[in-house]
């Protein structure tokens, strides 16, 4: 479920865009530093958003040119903020590992093999990350188990299924101490998670119907042929709009020092643009190993 959190680049100024990239590169560097080189492959823009959100309440950090393995020569500027990136990198590893495990569960024997191999590769990183954030790792396992139960029962409630995933996402901020920062952040992340779940469900609807797999929208709106009628589509848009509004209302209460433009762009402009693209069938998730689309079930981790 990575790839749905994006800014509207055309409406982002150059300085903010560079900060966004520096945060992405900083996260990649932190992953490598904490969890070894291979963890660098787990970097993604969704977790960059998490970092931007979490660090928005802190003082600004310096930017430095860093070596980038994906680049032959030259350096890339990246934000240096070990304290800020630490928990975000751990969350990235935990969520990615859970996603791999879910793929192993869902796939048939032969297709399952590569994912099994990858879980072995990332097992140690996962163990270290769950030692860093034991509460978050436990929360993930608990909510995913709850989600599987709902799926097995073919739950028609989009709220209950989205809630399992949204709680995982909002758990990414539960280590913060100050309630004035934690509470708005949890609300932003909860509704981000809800938005991601619904967007992903809509994106996968056709495929899930064809494969007779679980999709909450199928049971909620009694869809049979894989397309949602216009009235239901409008209703779903209103639901995601409400989530965006609630995330925005919480964002306004966050005592932000930096990254305000970026966060507002992602929430107010990026989310609706992504949902519009999904709705019209024009959304293309970044083609990568981690964006593997599930075939049997449509569970919602990361």
């Amino acid at each position, binding site marked *: 479920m990575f790839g749905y959190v994006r800014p509207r680049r055309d409406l982002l100024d150059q300085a903010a865009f560079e900060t966004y990239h520096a945060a992405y590169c900083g996260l990649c560097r932190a992953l490598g530093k904490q969890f070894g080189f291979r963890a660098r492959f787990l970097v993604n823009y969704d977790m960059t958003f998490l970092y931007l959100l979490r660090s928005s309440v802190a003082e600004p950090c310096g930017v430095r040119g860093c070596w980038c393995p994906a680049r032959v020569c030259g350096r890339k500027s990246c934000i240096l903020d070990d304290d800020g990136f630490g928990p975000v990198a751990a969350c990235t590893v935990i969520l990615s590992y859970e996603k791999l495990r879910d793929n192993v569960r869902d796939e048939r024997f032969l297709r399952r093999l590569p994912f099994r191999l990858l879980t072995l590769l990332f097992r140690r990183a996962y163990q270290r990350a769950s030692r860093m954030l034991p509460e978050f790792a436990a929360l993930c396992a608990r909510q995913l188990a709850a989600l599987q139960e709902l799926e097995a029962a073919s739950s028609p*409630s989009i*709220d209950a299924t989205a809630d399992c995933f949204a709680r995982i996402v909002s758990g990414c901020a539960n280590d913060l101490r100050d309630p*004035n920062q934690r509470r708005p952040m949890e609300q932003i992340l909860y509704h981000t998670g809800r938005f991601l779940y619904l967007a992903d469900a809509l994106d996968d609807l056709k495929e899930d119907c064809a494969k007779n797999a679980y999709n909450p929208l199928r049971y909620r709106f009694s869809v049979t042929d894989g397309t949602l009628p216009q009235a239901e589509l409008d209703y779903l848009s*209103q*639901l995601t709009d*409400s989530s965006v*509004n609630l995330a925005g209302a919480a964002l306004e*209460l966050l005592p932000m020092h930096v990254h305000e433009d970026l966060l507002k762009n992602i929430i*107010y402009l990026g989310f609706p643009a992504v949902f519009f693209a999904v709705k019209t069938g024009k959304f293309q998730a970044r083609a990568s190993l981690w964006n593997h689309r599930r075939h049997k079930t449509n569970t919602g981790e990361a």
Partner: protein
Amino acid sequence: MKDPYEVLGVSRTASENEIKTAYRDLVKKYHPDNYANNPLADLASEKMKEINEAYDAIARARASSSAYQSGGSYQGGGSHSYNYGYQSSGASNPYAQVRSYINANQLDAADSMLNTAPTRDGEWYFLKGTIAYRRGWLDEARQHYQTACAMVPTNYEYQNALRTVQGGYTPYRQTNYQRSDMDEACNLCNALLCLNCLCGGCR
């Protein structure tokens, strides 16, 4: 206390009008109506208090140095307007306890109490919807509010809640973050075309 100018986001040399505009924009953004039923309503009302105090502090400071005419700060701040006004009816209202649980954000307690209620009237559906809304379960909230409105079509509180959950009302969103439509540009083009024709016709 924080620097009042910082709270309002204006410079120390800002004119009276600039301060008033900044103040009004902030009041619009953090107005209790925007945070009705929102679990963060208490933070919003704190923010509102801070803004009011900052505005009053600036007005006082300027009045002492010159004859500064303050428009007076917004007095409706706080969360009273949406804090379920009739809790005081006490034991006569079986839902009073549920409402006070909701106000204290104890949603599980409120929900289990509601589930044991003998009747399911409009108020029951409204409270059920409010609990769902506070949890972020927007689909369920909408269904319950719609049932409540259908059962008691005259209740203003239910209609308001339904309107909030239906969205489309986002006053805190700054204008530059409003989704841009092509319509405005088209309207402008059309207006210019019409103007051109009219001017041409006058020749």
